[in-house]
């Protein structure tokens, strides 16, 4: 229908779309436990950061302002995790034939990278402060660090199962969800731990400085913390890099040669060529295989047997190409 006048309300789709979209996002976020947790923790962090920032500006303390910026930086990690957990549930379409499931692996990887960068940054700041100690007024920073520590402890408690997976009785029905957001949760968890370590470090160094007047404590704490953060991130990075590089799933490393043997023993199979197995996202394995078979072999039977063999080890998406040898 053509608009009859400029004020025709039917012709204003744009605003409605935005509202519908955002409400759709909210529904998506609140529907899943993982993303719900992430969302509320993100709100908590953001509000704390804002409070810190305003307090720092009001009391004109540079230390507080920079600390609040660090918190904002962490919020971006949480945001990335949240975005990934929503995106990975979108339906697949023409451009993404596997859907968006890989988003969680990517989010875990990017979080790991940010963490490494943060560790590097803290280390460099520590070195700078060691060489030229500034006069930091830690008395203002101390109560704020304690508050930050509390916020982070809440986060650790909420996400503690995410890093290592699972197993509570009543949580079982969320297991599939948890399984697939394992990477995201691990990244977020490590981020929160890094934050907690930072707060703990500040508290310890403040105490040391007040009691023993050890100015060197601050930079040393920073450097130690950055090393700890760096070390803790390595497993997450290794796993996500493995997945992104299309590496054979580590859990299948031992099972696959056996499977190949069993397939080769099937009647009619000459050999196996070009096996490729890779992880799409957590616990979802995809495989492709080419079998060279005799001309008189029962291709269908071979296919179903092969599928069976591999399903037993957990590869559910398998593509078996049958090449019939010329006689």
């Amino acid at each position: 229908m053509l608009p009859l006048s400029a004020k025709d309300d039917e012709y204003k789709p744009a605003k409605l779309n935005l509202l519908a979209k955002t409400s759709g996002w909210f529904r998506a976020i609140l529907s899943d436990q993982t993303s719900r947790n992430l969302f509320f923790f993100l709100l908590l962090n953001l509000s704390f950061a804002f409070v810190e920032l305003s307090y720092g500006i009001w009391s004109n303390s540079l230390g507080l302002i920079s600390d609040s910026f660090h918190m904002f930086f962490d919020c971006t990690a949480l945001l990335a995790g949240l975005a990934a957990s929503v995106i990975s549930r979108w339906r697949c379409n023409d451009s993404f034939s596997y859907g968006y499931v890989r988003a969680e692996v990517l989010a875990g990887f990017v979080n790991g990278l940010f963490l490494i960068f943060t560790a590097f940054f803290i280390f460099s700041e520590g070195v700078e402060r060691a060489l030229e100690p500034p006069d930091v007024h830690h008395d203002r920073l101390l109560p704020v660090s304690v508050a930050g520590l509390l916020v982070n402890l809440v986060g650790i408690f909420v996400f503690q199962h995410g890093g290592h997976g699972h197993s509570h009785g009543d949580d079982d029905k969320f297991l599939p969800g948890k399984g697939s957001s394992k990477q995201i949760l691990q990244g977020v968890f490590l981020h929160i731990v890094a934050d907690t370590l930072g707060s703990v470090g500040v508290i310890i160094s403040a105490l040391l400085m007040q009691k023993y007047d050890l100015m060197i404590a601050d930079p040393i704490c920073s450097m130690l913390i950055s090393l700890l953060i760096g070390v803790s991130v390595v497993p997450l990075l290794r796993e996500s890099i493995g997945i992104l590089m299309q590496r054979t799933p580590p859990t299948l490393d031992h099972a696959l040669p056996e499977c190949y043997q069993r397939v080769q023993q099937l009647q009619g199979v000459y050999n196996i060529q070009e096996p490729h197995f890779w992880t799409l996202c957590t616990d979802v394995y995809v495989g492709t295989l080419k079998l060279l078979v005799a001309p008189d072999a029962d291709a269908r039977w071979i296919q179903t047997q092969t599928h069976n063999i591999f399903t037993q080890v957990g590869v559910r998406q398998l593509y078996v190409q049958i090449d019939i040898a010329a006689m």
Partner: protein
Amino acid sequence: MACEPNRVRLLCMLSLTFGFFIVEVVVSRITSSLAMLSDSFHMLSDVIALLVALVAVRFAEKTQATNKNTFGWIRAEVMGALVNAVFLTALCFTIILEAIERFTEPNEIDSPYIVIGVGAAGLLVNLLGLCLFHGHAGGGHGHSHGGGGGGHGHSHGSGGHSHGKKKTGQICKSEKPNSSSSETNTLVVVDHNSPNGVNSENRGYDFSKDGTELQTNGSPLYDDVDHSSAAQLNMRGVFLHVLGDALGSVIVVVNALIFTFVWQPCLPDEACLNPCINSHSTDHQHVNQTLVGLTDPGAYRMAGPCWVLYMDPTLCIMMVLILLYTTYPLLKESALILLQTVPKQIDMHQLNEKLLCLEGVLAIHELHIWQLAGSRIIATAHIKCHDPTAYMDVAKRIKDFFHDEGIHATTIQPEFVTFSSDSRDSLCELSCRTQCAPKLCCGSADKAAEKKAASEADDGLREVSPATLEVISEDPEQAAALPLVVTPEPAAAPREAESFL
């Protein structure tokens, strides 16, 4: 190999940058300037970026398939590009933080001449780097436009900075402001260059030596072309990083020059006050001018125009904006490849239709196409055909068809229609349209249910291809209704329902 010059360039730039980093650290210790020390850390992050790119290039040269990495390491370059892009973004954040800090507490530059000197030296180094990488990474593939990128290396109060690069006119050859269209260009161009694509499957992992291959899996292995297009992404990351440095240096030098010529500082032995710096002494003097016992109130000189002190953070923020704008396409492109997206030049709908038109092809399901890296595209599909004898013809036709599209690594699983009884020929036609659907896949499924689903899906699939996709996407709901749900994941169904919000 085509990648050799890349490696050489990277090593060259790496050693230069590292050397400069050492120089900066030494100078900072001599002049005991904290700002130069922090700048040297920016330099260090640059070194790290170059290292990442170098590692990626080294890894990607091993295109040979290994036990663990059956596709070879060719994806390393895409990863390298992503890592660099992410680092650049993180760096931009820190620069914004520092700039905001500087807005609240402006600092004078203590020794502007040293800053200018070191800045100019850095500019030279970065210029060299730009020349090194521009030829390779540039070449009109939509990346940064000249005149500005961000970079890290803005001057902190006193201290030089070292990376500078002037990249103003030269790189701006990429006239395409729309990054996505130029990305398409990249992929398409490379594709035309390598008609035989790259298929290193032939030197893949063979169990026995006498594999007689019927499929003509695209013949010679044009790894070089593949490499160069994947390497493009990596080199672009490095280029952007170096570009950021260049801009940083430019800003440093410009700032120091303005400072030298415009600012009138307070000399130490002169009575003057600095209104721009918010310190206690000036506060007191400012507020209680007569109280502090100043002999001659009129003879107070005011330190130079305040806006000069705010130039630095302003320029930095501009720089950051430009850098972010130029980094975003790189970030997006590498992230999309890693997300297993269908390459831009391939239209799934059309492909489906054309495949259905081939003789002997009854239906297609589970068609997945994704890009490994560069121009190496991999496709997998289930093709339904009449019987095994017809299959071999169809297989050849299908392979040729994919070759024409530029996809050279395909795995086609045949599904035979003719019988019902025991053949579990297909994986579920109803499977795998959502991420947890694999858990529903036919491992131990009910034959009857499967057949029923198969025939349902079949009827749907015989129509026009858009229906193909539609039937498949509806299927998981059918699947939830069917007793096809496999035992281990009873919760999969409710989760699926969730995803269709």
